[in-house]
C-alpha cells in the first residue's frame, strides 16, 4: 500500500518546526509503524536528507520509549497498543497520516517527534520509591500482601511512562502517570506508611513541572497503551487530600 505522511520536522529545540509531506511507497501490512518509518528514513538517507527522528528501544511495547500522535491520537488508533506494536495492516492504501510529537509545555520538542520527558523522572524522584533500608532480600511471604492490593498495584505498575496521557489530555495533565506511580506504591504494605507524604511530594512536583489540571474527561485512559484506569487519579486525589487535610 501507499500512504501519505505529514510529519512534524524540527531541527532542534530552538528551531521553528513545521509539517512536511512524504510519500511512503510499497508499505507491507506486516510492518510495524516504526518499521514503516525506518523504510521512509532509508529513502531519505539515500537522497541525502535528514531522517525523521523518533524514539524507540524495545519495539515490543514494554519500555515506553516510543510514542507520537497519529492523526491526533496518541500511539494511533489501536487501543492498548504502543506505536511500536501498531501494525500497518490497520491502514489502507491511500491513507493520509499526520504525525506530531507529544505537545506539552513540560515536554519541549528536542527534534522532530522526540520530546524531553525528564519531568516524569523528576516526579518519580520526588517520591516514587520506598525509603526503608532494604538490607538483604527478605524471605518470601514475610510481608503479606492481600491479593486485591497486589492486583491493583500490578495494574498501576504496568505504566511504562510513555507520556501518551499527557499528550492526549487537552490540558496536558500528568495525572494518569502520577496517579499510577502513587497508586502502585501506596496500595502495597511496603509503601503505605509513606503514602501521604508521597502523594504530597509527587503532586507538588507534577505541578512544579507545569503540567495542567485534570478535568476527569478520560482521554488519557482511552490512549494509555497499558490501559491504566482513571481510578489511579482518584487514589492520588484521595491520598493527597487526606494527607493535607487530615
Amino acid at each position, binding site marked *: 500500500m501507499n500512504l501519505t505522511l505529514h510529519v512534524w520536522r524540527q531541527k532542534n529545540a530552538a528551531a521553528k518546526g513545521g509539517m512536511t509531506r512524504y510519500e511512503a511507497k510499497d508499505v507491507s501490512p506486516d510492518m510495524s509503524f516504526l518499521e514503516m518509518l525506518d523504510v521512509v528514513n532509508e529513502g531519505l538517507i539515500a537522497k541525502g536528507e535528514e531522517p525523521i527522528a523518533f524514539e524507540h528501544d524495545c519495539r515490543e511495547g514494554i519500555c515506553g520509549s516510543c510514542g507520537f500522535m497519529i492523526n491526533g491520537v496518541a500511539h494511533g488508533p489501536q487501543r492498548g497498543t504502543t506505536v511500536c506494536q501498531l501494525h500497518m495492516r490497520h491502514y489502507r492504501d491511500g491513507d493520509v497520516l499526520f504525525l506530531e510529537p507529544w505537545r506539552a509545555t513540560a515536554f519541549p520538542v528536542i527534534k522532530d517527534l522526540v520530546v524531553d520527558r525528564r519531568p516524569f523522572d523528576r516526579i518519580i524522584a520526588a517520591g516514587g520509591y520506598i525509603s526503608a533500608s532494604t538490607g538483604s532480600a527478605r524471605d518470601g511471604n514475610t510481608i503479606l500482601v492481600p491479593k486485591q492490593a497486589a492486583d491493583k498495584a500490578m495494574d498501576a505498575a504496568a505504566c511504562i511512562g510513555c507520556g501518551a496521557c499527557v499528550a492526549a489530555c487537552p490540558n496536558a495533565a500528568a495525572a494518569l502517570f502520577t496517579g499510577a506511580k502513587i497508586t502502585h506504591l501506596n496500595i502495597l504494605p511496603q509503601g503505605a506508611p509513606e503514602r501521604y507524604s508521597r502523594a504530597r511530594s509527587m503532586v507538588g512536583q507534577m505541578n512544579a513541572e507545569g503540567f495542567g489540571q485534570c478535568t476527569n474527561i478520560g482521554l488519557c485512559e482511552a490512549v494509555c497503551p497499558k490501559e491504566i484506569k482513571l481510578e489511579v487519579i482518584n487514589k492520588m*486525589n484521595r491520598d493527597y487530600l487526606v494527607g493535607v487535610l487530615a
Partner: protein
Amino acid sequence: MSSLAVPAPIDRVFRFYQTTVGKKAIMAVTGVVLFAFILGHLAGNLQVFEGQAKFDNYAIFLRSLPAALWSARIVLLVCVTLHIVTTVQLALLGKSARAVSYVKKDNAAASYASRTMYWSGPIVGAFIVYHLAQFTFLLTGPVMEGHPYDNVVLSFQQWPISVFYIIAMVLLGMHLSHGVWSMFQSLGITSPTRSPFIKSAARLIAIVITLGFLSIPIAVLAGFVTTSGAR
C-alpha cells in the same frame, strides 16, 4: 521524603490551594453546594404547577426568614465565586501547559459534555446573572414587585425569554452530567466498581433536573399554566 519538614497550617492551606488537586477539590466542594441549591430551587419552582397561591406563599415564606435567606445567599455567593475563580485559574494553567496546539487532534473518546465544561459553565454563569436581574432584582422583563407567580408566567409567555432559559437549562444539564461524576473523582471517592454507577447516576440526575426546569417554560408556552389575574 521522610526528610520533608511538616509545613505549618497556614503554609499548608496555601500549598493546598497552589496545587491542581487542591483547586479541583475546591471546585468539587463548591460544585456540590451549587448542585444542592439547584435541587432545592427546582423543588421550589415546581410548585408553579400547584397554582398562584401556593407559589406566592412559598416566596413569602422564604422572605419571612431573612437570616436563613441571607445565610444561604452568602454561602452561594462565596461558592459561585470560588468555583469561578478556580475555574479561571485552572483554565489558564491548562492553556499554558499546552501552549503549542496540535495540527490534528481527535478528542472523540471523551464525552461532549466533558469537553465543553469551559463553555457550559460560563454560559450558565451569564444566565445566572440575567436570571437574578429578572426574577430577584426585577430589573428586566414583564415583572412586578410582590407577584412572583405572575412574573414567571408573563415572562415565559414571551418566547425569546423561554428560549434563552431552555438553552441555559440544557447547558446546565450537560454541565452537571459531567460535573456530578467529576466531583466524586476530584474528591477521591470513586472506585473501579462504583465508577460506572456514579457516571450513569450523574447522567440520569442531570436529565431529570433539566427536564424539571424545562417543564415550566414549556407548560407556560403551551398555555397549560396561565396568569392568575391577580396583578
